[in-house]
């Protein structure tokens, strides 16, 4: 009996590199996407003040992003069940939830990395190759900022503004995506360099101090 226990533990750890859920193991073996987890922020919640308040960062990370992660994992489990049952209409019906929650997770994971406290260089204009590329495609860094602001303000409803690199055309562009659609939905060759969350939850708690004082 001990031998059997050892064997099953070994199989699990072989499949996943240690300490993971059986579902993920089975899923990995079958080629279906594995579940995700909430990435830690590389800085404290309050580290981006006064630009973004600690309260917003905490809510944004612990509530919104965490909900996307939880719902994405749930949708993946349901997808797994639907696929194994061969229920095509259920699979199709889950695509909305997967796109929304999965996109939310992908986008926010990029977003946290795009931000840095001022003490670590956050807010400094880009230099090197990126700086030159921006000057080449937009004229100047200020022009890029102006363009991204305009696109963000013009976006109806919820969505994201991106500084995108088109790998094939080898150029930079400013793109927007609605709701939580990731940048790749705009074109498979797009790589997100910088994403700005323009959902109201990203800034609304500070809107009073920005607008009405």
């Amino acid at each position, binding site marked *: 009996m001990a031998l059997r226990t050892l064997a099953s533990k070994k199989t699990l750890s072989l499949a996943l590199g240690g300490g993971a859920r059986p579902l993920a193991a089975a899923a990995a073996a079958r080629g279906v996407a594995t579940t995700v987890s909430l990435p830690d922020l590389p800085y404290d919640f309050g580290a981006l003040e006064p630009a973004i308040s600690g309260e917003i960062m905490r809510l944004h990370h612990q509530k919104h992003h965490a*909900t996307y992660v939880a719902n994405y994992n749930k949708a993946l489990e349901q997808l797994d069940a639907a696929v194994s049952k061969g229920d095509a209409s259920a699979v199709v019906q889950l695509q909305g939830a997967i796109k929304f929650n999965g996109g939310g997770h992908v986008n926010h994971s990029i977003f946290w990395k795009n931000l840095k406290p001022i003490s670590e260089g956050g807010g400094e204009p880009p230099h090197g190759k990126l700086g030159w590329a921006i000057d080449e495609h937009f004229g100047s860094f200020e022009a890029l900022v102006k363009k991204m602001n305009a696109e963000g303000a013009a976006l109806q409803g919820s969505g994201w503004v991106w500084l995108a690199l088109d790998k094939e055309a080898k150029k930079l562009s400013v793109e927007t995506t609605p709701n939580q659609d990731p940048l790749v939905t705009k074109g498979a060759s797009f790589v997100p360099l910088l994403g700005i969350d323009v959902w109201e939850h990203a800034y*609304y*708690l500070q809107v*009073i101090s920005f607008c009405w004082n």
Partner: protein
Amino acid sequence: MFNIRRQGGLTRRFSKVVSYYGLTTPPYKLDALEPYMSRRTVELHWGKHHQDYVDGLNKQLATSPLYGHTLEELIKEAYNNGNPLPEYNNAAQVWNHLFFWESMQPEGGGSPEGGVLQQIEKDFGSFTNFREEFIRSASQLLGSGWVWLVLKRTEKKLAVVHTRNAISPLAFGDIVCLLDPFFKMFNIFSINFAMTSHVLFLQPIISLDLWEHAYYLDYKDDRRSYVTNFIDHVVSWHTVTLRMMRAESFVNLGEPTIPVA
């Protein structure tokens, strides 16, 4: 609201009168919906967001060929059968928010009475079912949008629907009016019609704003509490009764159970 500009020649005979959309105050004081919707939220939502839509619309209409319509006509024109023109978002949001303020009242909520309650019980089974359906529809909306209680004209029954961003049921009314008999003649189109019919030809009765700006200051990410408080404490059944009365002039619901004035 009138803004008079005088143009052209030397005499007053050539002056041109131009009119703009204005913004009325909500039918209650800004703090009247506390504690379910704070004064700060209403002040910002109405005073800034709603006002911005009105100002944006006026700015667009100054140079737009769509100048001259009533607001409801403008929404239908600007919706352009699904390819919205630039004026659509502002026009629809102006109307949606007017409808929203009037859908609420201080000390609202509870349950409706008389004919409205009878119609809800007929179309949803019970008031509790309607309430759960409303809350469920709100949680199923991903992103910004609105939840509506509507009266479906062809089916002659109430239903809960949700729409994204600025879409309102108004945009769809006329389309089905034209195509309805055509679709019924040719059953091959019935599948498409059934798929889209749940958002066509609808008379709005209640609206609830689910854009984050409507609830974020009071409820943060807890959208569910916001919707529950709306339906339990804030929705104006008086307004619903008035709207149902008006809707009955378009839709024959049988013997009048909504009081006729």
